[in-house]
């Protein structure tokens, strides 16, 4: 039995089948980005083990095709087992071994990137300083205890936990949180009394003055989903009523539980850093007589008290700031404003692996080619 499994995984037919499936997947997944949006299509087709088809009206999905993760891992196993069974090391095959090793490193590196990389945005106004960046898509439901005069305690519930009808508890919270409604994309409008017959979003706080509606998921590159949730609380000292939380609201709701107050907020996930970045100056040069951007740059002050480091850095296109394993790219600005910058913040501990992999693959191909060339030349010489 084990032999059969091993034989299956090391077979060349499996390699070909995976390659064909990968080609189909890339084709279908690329087309799907038109209707499903770049991010959602990537998640569904490439960052998944299986691709599911949902029958209309059905509540469950039927797997119909292998996803990108499954194909990648099967190819990796296929490569490893094939190497073990069919390839015997010889100096004459050094190039092939190096090429395959580079491929293995590339695959593993890509999986590691998927798991370990975080991408976020840092938006700064001239004179402003921040010690955190914010995710572009994922939100977190946070409860902040500000009772300690020295520091705030943040209890962060990730977006994957926020599903309508779900009950959430944590030892750090004196109440349970019930997600009454969660919309992955939403719209909020001021409730116009006597004009609108729609219900207000919640019974307490700002939610009692606005209307909440579900919005279609964003599918274009220049738009993003803004989720909202209506929550309520359970427990002995739990506050009563329902509360609306959304990144569209200006600031948190203050929830009283027993003798303590908590700031409750649904916000784009924050990534805190032990240092701060302050924007000194933002420059946005255009080609003369046009609105076409020529160059934009951000002069910032990096202040890291833990390393006793304070320095001024200029970030501009193709010249990112790399600091403490994090890279800050000049990413954008806001039209009509010349005092606001947006930096893309990328933290990827495995960012070097693609470079190393490609170098190894390239060297391997050159070495193998040279071995064949030399052998061919020698044969011709002998002939």
């Amino acid at each position, binding site marked *: 039995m*084990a032999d059969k499994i091993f034989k299956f*995984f090391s077979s060349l037919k499996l390699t070909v089948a995976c390659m064909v499936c990968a080609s189909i997947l890339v084709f279908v997944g690329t087309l799907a980005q038109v209707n499903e949006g770049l991010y959602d299509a990537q998640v569904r087709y490439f960052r998944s*083990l299986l691709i599911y088809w949902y029958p209309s009206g059905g509540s469950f999905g039927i797997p119909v095709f292998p996803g990108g993760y*499954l194909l990648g*891992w*099967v190819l990796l*196993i296929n490569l*490893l*087992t094939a190497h*073990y069974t069919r390839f015997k090391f010889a100096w004459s095959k050094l190039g092939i071994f190096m090429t395959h090793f580079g491929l293995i490193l590339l695959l593993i590196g890509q*999986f590691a990137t998927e798991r370990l990389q975080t991408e976020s945005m840092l938006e700064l106004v001239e004179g*402003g*300083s921040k*010690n955190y960046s914010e995710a572009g898509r994922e939100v977190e439901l946070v409860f902040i205890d*500000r009772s300690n005069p020295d*520091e*705030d*305690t*943040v*209890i*962060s519930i*990730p977006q*994957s*936990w926020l599903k309508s009808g779900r009950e*959430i508890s944590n030892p750090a919270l004196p109440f349970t949180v019930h997600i009454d409604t969660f919309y992955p*994309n939403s*719209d*909020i*409008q*001021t*409730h*116009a*009394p*006597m*004009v*609108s*017959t*729609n*219900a*207000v979003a919640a*019974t307490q706080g*700002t939610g009692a*003055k*606005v*209307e909440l*509606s579900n*919005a279609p998921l*964003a599918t274009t590159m220049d*738009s993003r*989903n*803004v989720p909202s949730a209506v929550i309520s609380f359970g427990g002995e000292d739990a506050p009563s009523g329902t509360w609306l939380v959304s*990144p*569209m609201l*200006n*600031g948190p709701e203050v929830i009283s539980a027993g003798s303590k107050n908590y700031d409750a907020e649904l916000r784009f996930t924050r990534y*805190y850093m032990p240092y701060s970045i302050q924007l000194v100056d933002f420059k946005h040069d255009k080609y003369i007589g046009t609105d076409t951007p020529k160059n934009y740059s951000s002069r910032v002050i990096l202040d890291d008290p833990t390393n006793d480091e304070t320095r001024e850095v200029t970030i501009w296109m193709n010249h990112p700031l790399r600091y403490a394993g994090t890279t800050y790219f000049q990413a954008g600005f*806001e*039209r*009509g404003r010349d005092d*606001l910058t947006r930096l893309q913040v990328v933290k990827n501990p495995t960012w070097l692996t693609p470079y190393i992999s490609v170098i190894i693959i390239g060297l391997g191909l050159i070495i193998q080619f040279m071995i064949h060339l030399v052998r061919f030349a020698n044969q011709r010489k002998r002939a």
Partner: protein
Amino acid sequence: MFTAKHTLTLAASGLVVLGAGCKDQSIQVYQIPKEQLKPIRQMAETPARPPATAPHLRWGDLPTNWKAKAPSNMRAASIEITGKDGLIADVGAIPLPRMAGKELEFVNMWRGGMNLPQTTTNAIAELREDVTIAGTPGALFEMVSEDLLVEKKYKQRVVVGMLTEQDSTWFFKLTGPDELVAAEKQNFVNWLETVEIDTSSHGPETPQMSQTPAPASTTSPGDWKIPSTWTAQPPRQMLLASFALPGGDAKVEVSSLGGDGGGLLANINRWRGQLGLPQASESQLSEITSPLDTVDGKGTLVDIQGNNQKLLVVIVPHNGKSWFYKSMGATDVVDRERDAFLEFAQTAKR
């Protein structure tokens, strides 16, 4: 018999399972330094909003399950009624100027919001009940939805008391789940008798809505082709954008409302009222309105000429909402900016 080969295969398979796992998505608890920075955009840009005013209402004792809340927006009264199973109904009161004689428009506006068919002048008499509001004869209208509009579980019932006094019409509206509102109707009618109208004023609260981030479906004013001679005004409640027009007292405003925004005729008559013009009938709509092509499909141009004042409105239905682009003010300014305004409304992305 397991060999090294098999062990290798199993180990690699284990990697599949590990590799396919999700990122860490557990609840995080962590400490951060006290925040010293406020969102900088809001520090400088949020304009001081002049408080709007609305008359006070006074009333006697409320039933035990009625809880008065602080007046908000333009509401002079706001009361929450709690029923069985935690069901909640809402009572609100608001005065609106120059709304006398518009019972039909209002009733049809509410019926439209409840997915009920429009009613007629003759039929409205049957819907009307006589009640006493603040010691004065008033009218009461009651509607029940066919659809489950409340939490998708309950029909919605709306009971509205209307009282016209001098130049203002008062609307007292009880809204909520069908059974709860039906059970509380008599309490509501009793409450209407006890209310007293006080013309002293108070400043209402306004919902605090963030200017950023915009929802995905909203296009920022930055994507609009705004004529360079227009001057952007500070944002105001209910408005998405506001611009002062050059050379006189006129402005352009952009707003959006869900659905049809209350209905074309009701809106036109409201605007005509603002310009001191008599009400228009359904048959006059074709004289006042004309179709207009926009980047998001067919829109409607409304052209209303008052005494020295003019109003141009482009209404564009898009994605379940109605977008209103209004150019209003001194006739000569509105006329001069007409082409620029129409181009703006036709090309603005929604």
